[in-house]
């Protein structure tokens, strides 16, 4: 049984199905990866699962711990333990990192917040009182986002491209944070274009045109990167376009 189950989910923008009778089941306590080409609908799926405004009007259902959450707003879903690390996180004028992390943290002690920052590779001495604003670099902002999610100790963490903008050295910090989440019992869903991130998962899904078109062990799904995709009759999309390779 999955902790989060998506049944026949269809979401349309301007009459066009972005998610198209999508079915997926995320197992409790596992680290999952979702891969797929640009525009496949990965971020849209994440937004729909956390219940962002604009993503509430869909067909099908989403069940969390066996119960439908379709009528719950983003804050109510968060209170039940579902959260999202944004692909491009928001910036907040004048809000110190300390306060931002405390807002989501279960353990609000300063020591804990400092430890979290260290975990993602940001020295608390330099970052604790900096604002979560536009002066943070893209990578720094992504690290703060991840720290905030670990702080929350959620049941389900959707991480949309947690490695985007992250340098080679820091990528291991991201992996560490994923391990911390796993050790807390969090179900992690990694949305990614990176093999290294995919390898952190125990189970993976391939998305294409608003559907899950394959799933299974990482070893298997990994081949979509390695073999430049298996033959795909999906919506007549050229294989090269799916995996971003040369024609």
């Amino acid at each position, binding site marked *: 049984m999955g902790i989060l189950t998506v049944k026949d989910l269809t979401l349309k923008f301007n009459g066009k199905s972005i998610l198209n009778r999508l079915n997926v089941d995320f197992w409790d306590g596992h680290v999952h990866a979702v891969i797929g080409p640009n525009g496949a609908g990965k971020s849209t799926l994440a937004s729909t699962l*956390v219940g*962002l*405004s604009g993503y509430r009007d869909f067909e099908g259902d989403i069940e969390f711990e066996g119960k439908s959450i379709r009528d719950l*707003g*983003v*804050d109510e*879903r*968060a*209170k039940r333990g579902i*959260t*999202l690390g*944004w692909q491009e*996180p*928001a*910036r*907040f*004028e*004048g*809000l110190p990192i300390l*306060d931002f992390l405390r*807002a*989501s943290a279960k353990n609000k002690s300063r020591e804990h917040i400092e430890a979290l920052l260290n975990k993602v590779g940001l020295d608390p001495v330099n970052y604790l009182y900096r*604002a979560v604003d536009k002066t943070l670099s893209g990578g720094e902002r992504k690290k703060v986002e991840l720290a*905030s*999610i670990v702080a*929350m100790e959620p049941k389900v963490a959707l991480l949309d491209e947690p490695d985007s903008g992250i340098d080679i050295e820091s990528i291991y910090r991201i992996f560490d944070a994923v391990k911390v989440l796993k050790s807390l019992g969090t179900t992690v869903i990694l949305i990614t274009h990176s093999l290294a991130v995919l390898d952190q998962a125990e189970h993976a899904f391939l998305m294409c045109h608003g559907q899950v078109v394959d799933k299974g062990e990482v070893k298997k799904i990994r081949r979509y990167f390695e073999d430049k995709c298996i033959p795909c009759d999906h919506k007549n999309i050229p294989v090269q376009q799916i995996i971003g390779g040369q024609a």
Partner: protein
Amino acid sequence: MKTQPELISSLYDYTDTDPNLKDPETAHLVINGNTVIGMHAVTGLNIKVKELDDGVELLVTLDDGTIVKKPVHLCFGMLPETGIQRIIMNVNIGTNAQISLLAHCVFPNAVDVQHLMDATIHIADGARYSYFEKHVHSSKGGLKVYPKAVVHVGKNAHFKTEFELIKGRVGLIDIEYETSCDDGGVVDMMARISGRADDIIKIKEIGHLNGERSKGALTSKIAVRDNARAEVYNKLTASGAYARGHVDCKEILQDNGVATAIPIVEVHHPKAHITHEAAIGSVDNKQLETLMSRGLSEDDAVEMIINGLLAR
């Protein structure tokens, strides 16, 4: 009856200032209603006080070349629920002198109180004057505050003022500041105010960049919630060559609040350059949903975003 030290400490209790200010050796002036209840000056800084029926008249002079390193603390307040406090302030900052003032205006119990401030400030050439006014109001909304200032900034002199009213209800605030700058002078005015219920916020800030290479920034950050209203009028004129200025007004609007921004830029010299931006809108949705996705309620998320915007 409270003793004077008791009065001072009960006024100070409403401020969240650094404990150094309580050090009697820090230059300070504490006025409750129309009575001076504490005063300590430092060499080169002269403060003359005349008590009026409904307030005080102050003459503050800083001698040429005097540099006061630690901020001077002013505390104007009234503990009673009703009354009028009028402060007339004449400030003369001598050539190349430097001072920074931190003023607390504390009206913790106000039900029907008026606080009027009329300041004339002259900053001589090369001097630096910074004034941070922080208001602490009651939650009852019965306050009317009228801060007025006319400021002259001399050659290469520097004037910075910041007005903060975030704690307690605004009531009515009606700010009117007008400054003029000589060659190389700098004016930097900032207001951060949060209104709720039926609070009314009016800001009129005018800066004249008359001198060559003078610079000016007028910044307003306002939040209006419930039925509060805000009207921000910022005007920057430039007649000096190479004068540079920017007007920035940001207003966050929630509930039934109403906000107006009137930025006026007027340039009289082809080599001067002034820009402006004004943004009025509700709390950004992505910010809101980010905090909500971390478990905050919508109200708490809005509070956090506004506090950030209005933070120093």
